[in-house]
């Protein structure tokens, strides 16, 4: 009986939300806690023709005031909100998103997860993130399809061999499990690869066996569901158009759904960081450019690791659907159009065809772009700002999907306590101080 009641409640609420009619009475009847996903739930729903699945998150109207507002419902913004609630008990939180959640770079990336960076602060935050990915599906009760299938970065020049051997030694000291492997081992792991060149022979590779991929949308959706379950408001189609200040202090934001007050403001908008900084009256050492990716038509399983080839600027993995997922270099000029230049696709594919001759006959199925936020040292910014109580998390550029849980963990701590050991080195003032976290080698290709 109670199950039937629940179905009816859900139907009413769902219908009213579709029509955009706010109805406080029925809102109160939304279950306060989400139902867990489980094998049992699948059987239960199967037995009643899947009529009982609930919405994964609510779509409330904004309140007048929140303890904290996060701008940007990408992975990093949602993870920040999640850890504000989970680790710091701050649950009166709104996450404002101008489009739909996960519709930015979080839903546009090629999902490579690895932590084989060179510098200690990077290894710390990326490996924290990678280890959180290991249990994310269980922690969020949402299958994010984390697949630690192994990531390999090919060395195709002598210079790269030296670079990756150095990284492998650095990783050993940092406690990140990587090794430099021989061309023969590469061939064993990736039978479809051509290691003999002629232009770029494979001379070895930096191999991280616990690197891999995850389902990008699911990461955003899983966090959104958990945030909504904690009582947080995820407000989509709500663009922040101004940052309101009282002197040097932030007091709220203007949005397309009206003004909203807050004690603390976290800006996590990737390619739009410059636009938000401009609203608040400061500049960032960041430029926004388009980065593209593409997938081939689906084929039978042929490669069960991720391969990155930095010298030729391309990387590839195979999705569960069978598509070869391919990414390459970023454009060289500022751009907000989420649409990159054709010749980058051509360059990327041309290079990969040399290394993987069998892909030469494949057709391209889809191609898309995202706007990535590039810093001078290719490392992110997780920082206080010149405006009091306003924090910024950006600069993840071409490689921030892998960092989502670690970044959210650090950003939440910074917002809640004012300091975070993981974020310490990543301030926006490190450039002026000359304290770069130079990852232009480790992040040599866009991923």
């Amino acid at each position: 009986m109670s199950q039937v009641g629940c179905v009816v409640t859900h139907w009413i609420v769902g219908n009213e939300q579709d029509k955009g009619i706010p109805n406080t009475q029925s809102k109160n009847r939304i279950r306060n806690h989400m139902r867990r996903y489980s094998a049992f739930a699948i059987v239960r729903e199967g037995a009643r023709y899947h009529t009982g699945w609930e919405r994964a998150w609510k779509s409330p109207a904004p309140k007048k005031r929140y303890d904290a507002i996060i701008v940007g419902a990408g992975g990093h913004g949602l993870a920040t909100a999640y850890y504000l609630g989970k680790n710091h008990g701050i649950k009166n939180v709104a996450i404002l998103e101008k489009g739909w959640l996960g519709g930015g770079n979080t839903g546009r990336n090629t999902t490579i997860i690895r932590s084989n960076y060179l510098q200690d602060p990077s290894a710390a935050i990326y490996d924290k993130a990678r280890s959180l990915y290991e249990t994310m599906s269980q922690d969020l009760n949402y299958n994010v399809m984390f697949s630690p299938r192994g990531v390999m970065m090919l060395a195709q020049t002598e210079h790269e061999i030296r670079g990756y051997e150095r990284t492998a030694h650095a990783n050993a000291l940092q406690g990140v499990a990587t090794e430099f492997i021989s061309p023969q081992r590469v061939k064993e792991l990736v039978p479809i690869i051509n290691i003999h060149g002629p232009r770029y022979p494979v001379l070895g590779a930096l191999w991280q066996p616990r690197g891999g991929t995850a389902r990008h949308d699911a990461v955003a959706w899983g966090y959104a569901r958990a945030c909504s379950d904690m009582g947080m408001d995820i407000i989509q189609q709500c663009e922040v158009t101004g940052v309101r200040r009282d002197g040097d202090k932030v007091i709220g934001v203007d949005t397309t759904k009206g003004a909203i007050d807050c004690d603390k403001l976290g800006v996590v908008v990737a390619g739009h960081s410059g636009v938000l900084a401009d609203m608040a009256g400061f500049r960032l050492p960041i430029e926004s450019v388009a980065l593209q990716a593409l997938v081939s038509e689906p084929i039978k399983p042929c490669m069960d690791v991720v391969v990155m080839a930095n010298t030729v600027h391309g990387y590839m993995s195979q999705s569960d659907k069978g598509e070869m997922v391919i990414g390459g270099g970023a454009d060289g000029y500022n751009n907000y159009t989420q649409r990159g230049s054709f010749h980058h696709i051509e360059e990327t594919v041309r290079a990969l065809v040399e290394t993987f001759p069998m892909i030469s006959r494949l057709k391209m199925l889809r191609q898309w772009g995202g706007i990535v936020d590039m810093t001078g040292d290719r490392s992110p910014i997780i920082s206080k700002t010149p405006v009091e109580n306003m924090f910024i998390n950006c600069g993840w550029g071409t490689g921030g999907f892998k960092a989502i849980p670690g970044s959210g963990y650090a950003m939440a701590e910074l917002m809640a306590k004012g300091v975070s050991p993981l974020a310490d080195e990543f301030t926006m003032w490190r450039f002026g101080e000359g304290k770069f976290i130079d990852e232009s080698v480790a992040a040599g290709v866009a991923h």
Partner: protein
Amino acid sequence: MLLLECPYCGAKCEETELSPGGEAHIKRYGPGSSDEDFEAYLFMRENPKGVHFERWRHVYGCGKWFHAARCTQSLEVFGTYAAQTFEPPQEIKDKISGKRPGWSWRDFS
């Protein structure tokens, strides 16, 4: 795909013929300048969603550096002009004003 006209040789270049050179009209601060000015010169960048000024080089052509005025939101090109200037020429500014009334970029408007 961007098409820019080289103001020197007049070639209408497709972007693979060009090399992007970043933000235009950056004032170079050196010894004796304040820390803030030096930091801003080296690292801080305009990153507008809209009107933007850039340097480009006609690398597979006449080889010369020039300037371009562009919209980063629509990829519309407002015009290109010579490198030997500290600010965009009036005619370029007027052209932008016609299309984007009320625009501003750093001290220019």
